[in-house]
């Protein structure tokens, strides 16, 4: 008798599903090696567009701005999220626990364009001019829930026994946190930070809304290029970004799973 849990055609469907998932990205990569100036006419293999991409000043500036904003936003968002998660998961008789959880996750409950409009109007009302400061403040806010969720999941999956044992042995709360809790939840903290970093690097809607001279992030810069038309250099830049994401995703995965998870 055939296995009743198997469905005919399901495997072929799933294989096609994976082809569909990867084909568009592979097309971009393939076209980036096209020697011709016209992106859609294939004339031969060439590395020249990578050369020109890596010498593109505006591109490198945009990368620098994106990396700076993402790094600062990630550090602040992860710290704030870690503190909130410790209180909300471990804290006893915390008032407003439900409301606080909602507030921390607020950016996930609204379409980003609404948040972008909100910070744009806020910054124009208080007269904040510094483009980098605007980006960092806005990115920190929407990165917090992405840092928060993996940390909370890790804390919830961990019994408080170890921390209680540390406190029984006269460890101060700070020592117990630093020597016991933090090492145990490190993979969750790391996953949260990684997610926050990627979300910030990838952001378009808010960064575009706040865009001003001197604070053009990588996605906003690429958006400008796309509007000018498809070029092989654009394909080369996209391929480099894909490569960067793959390295980041794989590192995150390996580091998250290297420490054997408990519970």
């Amino acid at each position: 008798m055939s296995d009743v849990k198997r469905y005919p055609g399901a495997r072929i469907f799933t294989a096609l599903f994976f082809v569909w998932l990867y084909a568009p990205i592979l097309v971009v990569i393939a076209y980036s090696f096209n020697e011709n100036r016209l992106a859609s006419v294939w004339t031969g293999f060439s590395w020249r567009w990578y050369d020109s991409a890596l010498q593109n000043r505006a591109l490198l500036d945009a990368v620098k701005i994106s990396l700076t904003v993402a790094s600062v936003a990630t550090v602040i968002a992860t710290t704030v999220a870690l503190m909130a998660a410790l209180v909300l998961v471990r804290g006893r008789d915390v008032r407003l626990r439900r409301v606080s959880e909602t507030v921390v996750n607020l950016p996930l409950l609204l379409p980003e364009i609404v948040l972008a409009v909100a910070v744009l109007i806020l910054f124009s009302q208080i007269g904040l001019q510094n483009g980098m400061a605007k980006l960092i403040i806005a990115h920190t806010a929407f990165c917090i829930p992405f840092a928060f969720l993996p940390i909370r999941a890790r804390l919830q999956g961990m019994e408080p026994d170890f921390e209680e044992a540390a406190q029984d042995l006269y460890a101060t709360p700070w020592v117990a946190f630093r020597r016991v809790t933090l090492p145990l939840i490190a993979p969750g903290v790391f996953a949260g930070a990684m997610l926050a970093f990627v979300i910030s690097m990838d952001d378009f809607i808010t960064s575009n809304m706040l865009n001003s001279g001197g604070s053009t992030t990588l996605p906003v810069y690429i958006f400008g290029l796309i509007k000018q038309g498809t070029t092989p250099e654009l394909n080369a830049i996209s391929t480099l970004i894909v490569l960067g994401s793959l390295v980041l995703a794989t590192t995150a995965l390996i580091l998250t799973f290297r420490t054997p998870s408990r519970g």
Partner: protein
Amino acid sequence: MRLRDFRIWGLAPAWGIMALTLILPIGIVVLVSLATRGAYGGFDWGLSFDSYAKILFEEDWDGNLAFTPQYLAIIGRTLWLASLTTLICAALALPAAYTIAQAPGRWKPVLIYLVTLPFWVSMIVRVYAWIIILGNDGVIEKTLRGLGLVTDIDSLLFTDGAMLAGLVYSYIPLMILPVFASIEKLDGSLIEASHDLYGSRWVTARRVILPLTLPGVMAGAVLVFVPCLGAVLEPILLGGGKTMLMGNLIQTQFGGGRNWPFGAAIAVTLMVLVMIFLMLNALRARKGGADV
């Protein structure tokens, strides 16, 4: 430092940031939607419902208000495309996640990794890929011409279909993961029981598997539907900016200081639509929970 105090100041930064960058500013957005358009861009504070009226009515040459369906059409199209995207994502994610869940143990993490990987790739690059595929002289047009099926086709880009393709492609990982999580929890003996009771595979899928994985599908639906309602990149790059969605309608009102109060009014409308959707979903979840 006292642990007892930590439960107050540990939450303070999160509350502070959210209050100052989200809660207060959203309040300001509501106020701006009630303001009037300033003479030199920007806006003048006030209490006027003109911006909301503008969604439905247009002032004609002698000052009468005439009903105009253009913005309602944009709201309708946004809701329609977001719903369709969510449905297609669910239809693709269910069989794929089910098959992945059945894969041998050591393959499963690899397949899940492969499903999530595209999501780590920059959104703008993934949308851009569809321009190369659907565009003039794009991959699809060239393939069709190479096969001798067509000589020349209308551009596939800048259509509702192109937006739909981009939206589904952008958000499918957000559907697959929760669906996979609930399929993993599925008790295989229930499927066997259904079969023993002469339920065909199709009946089992519809009457046993689908209802049991519905919580995962609904969780995925929230994750896909909400960002779809506010999509900006897909309508601009794949829809060509001709056919608007609410996301790029809001965006254009704030670009170049066009009409901030009207943009704010559309943003508030979008926010209300999302809140209605989330409340209906929470109500449904509570009712569903009581049944089990």
